[in-house]
């Protein structure tokens, strides 16, 4: 059964230094607040996993808290590069980052295999591309009926999955709707899990066949309104495209980035204070 706790407690109890952690989200419902809390608590040597690393991974990597990255597409969608990720891979700063690079099909299948209790995933992929040359985890299996060769990758079973969802009820049953990504699979594949939610409600009022994570599949449920910002939560708030664009300037230089993290993340005690700190900074700029 899921425990309903504060995000601070959940990150403190469930993420350990050295863990493989999947903060999953596919443009929608990115667990930003949880990522920042992991930075705040200085969780380190993390083996990060995510199909589409974006700002929160740029932040964790830029702070030198990650040892490796399993991923398929790392960018600021529609804006450009993730500068901290680039500096880690191009210059090894602040520390070298081991890449375990995949494709979306590959990782989606690997998470599904992990959720399914299978040791590996089979899919028709990695045909003629160079990823198998740089990633020894990508192998091939032969169909015992047709003789066809298919791609095989190990199941993904993170130590911890961290996601954001719209709602949970008081028992800890979680409801997600809209773009679902691989969040359900990530939680079911992981050994431990944290779900931040927009709100806790008496009744989920889920439509038939909705995407639900029953309480018994979840570790901790933490109410963090707005916790997916600057990404969005369908039914609650829209994507803050302005911040995604602004991140480009914040993250481009090491010092600017570090000062930003110091001021807004490390000097604040939770996500509400972080948001207040950003607002205060925006006001200052406007006054100049």
């Amino acid at each position, binding site marked *: 059964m899921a425990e309903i706790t504060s995000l601070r407690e959940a990150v403190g109890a469930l993420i350990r230094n050295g863990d493989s952690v999947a903060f999953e989200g*596919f*443009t*929608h419902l990115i667990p930003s607040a949880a990522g920042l809390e992991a930075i705040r608590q200085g969780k380190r040597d993390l083996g990060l996993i995510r*199909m*589409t690393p974006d700002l929160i991974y740029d932040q964790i990597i830029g702070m030198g808290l990650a040892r490796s990255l399993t*991923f*398929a*597409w*790392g*960018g600021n*969608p*529609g*804006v450009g*590069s993730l500068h901290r*990720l*680039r500096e880690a*891979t*191009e210059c090894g700063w602040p520390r070298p980052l081991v890449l375990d*690079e*995949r*494709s*979306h*099909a*590959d990782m*989606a*299948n690997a*998470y*599904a295999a992990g959720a399914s209790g299978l040791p590996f995933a089979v*899919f*028709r*992929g*990695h*045909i*003629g*591309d*160079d*990823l198998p040359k*740089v990633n020894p985890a990508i192998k091939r299996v032969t169909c015992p009926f047709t003789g*066809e*060769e298919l791609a095989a990758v190990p199941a993904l079973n993170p130590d911890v999955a961290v996601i954001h969802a719209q709602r949970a009820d008081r028992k800890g049953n979680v409801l997600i709707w*809209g*773009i*679902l*990504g*691989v969040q*359900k*699979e990530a939680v079911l594949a992981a050994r431990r899990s944290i779900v931040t939610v927009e709100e806790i409600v008496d009744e989920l009022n889920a439509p038939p066949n909705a*995407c639900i994570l029953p309480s018994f599949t979840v570790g901790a449920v933490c109410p963090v309104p707005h916790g997916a910002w600057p990404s*969005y939560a*369908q039914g609650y708030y*829209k*994507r803050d*495209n*302005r911040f*995604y*664009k602004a991140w480009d300037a914040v993250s481009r230089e090491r010092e600017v980035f570090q000062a930003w993290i110091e001021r807004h993340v490390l000097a604040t005690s939770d996500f509400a204070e972080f948001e207040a700190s950003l607002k205060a900074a925006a006001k200052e700029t406007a006054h100049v």
Partner: protein
Amino acid sequence: MSDPGYDADEIMTVAAARQLKNGMVCFVGIGMPSAAANLARLSHAPDVVLIYESGTIGSKPDLLPLSIGDGELSETALSVVSVPEMFRYWLQGGRIDVGFLGAAQIDRFANINTTVIGDYARPKTRLPGAGGAPEIATSAKEIFVMLRMTPRAFVAQLDFVTSLGHGSGGKSRAKSGARGRGPTRVITDLGILEPDPESHELRLTSLHPGVRLPDAEAACGWKLARAADLAETPAPTAGELAALRDFKSRTAAAGAGRPK
């Protein structure tokens, strides 16, 4: 050359949109392909089915999405499925007529690189990576590629093959086990390239109005072949331009747009 009344990105988007036929099922890659696919839907191909790898099927966005997972795509979709389902039942299931991709580098056989410039272990430039492209490229019935034509993009030798095009040419793709016909069109800001039916080397088949052949040749990192019947791309119609600009201005007004 006088002002034609549209810019190079506009004719590229229009030329790309025209490749989509009404009713086609199109898997839309991140970036410029999304603008072209939506222009097709808003002009000559209202029943084109746009599928985004975030899981949205039949999206009809009123604004140009900044990412492949914007709320606009989900809220206007016929159906939204999980990402594992998207890649298994929909892409790998063989249900996609056209995969529409962007690229950082392309070679003469339309193989694509979106991974690194330089050495993989010590890259000069780290690019975003594969995303859905490798399996889109080898699962959709055909592939359209869209990118601006420059010598840095059109290279003799890719630094990394992220997604298979026609391999080393000839029958190499057919022998690879990849499904579909591979890249059948490369739509650029200067013209359109298509693979030779035998060698599968890209040939320039259409130049956009006002673009001279030497311009295209100079923008290509290999000796560019051209079709015997090299055509001129019809200029964007007033209707096409209006639809595109309307879409973009709606997007800008909403503050949601993709920066140019």
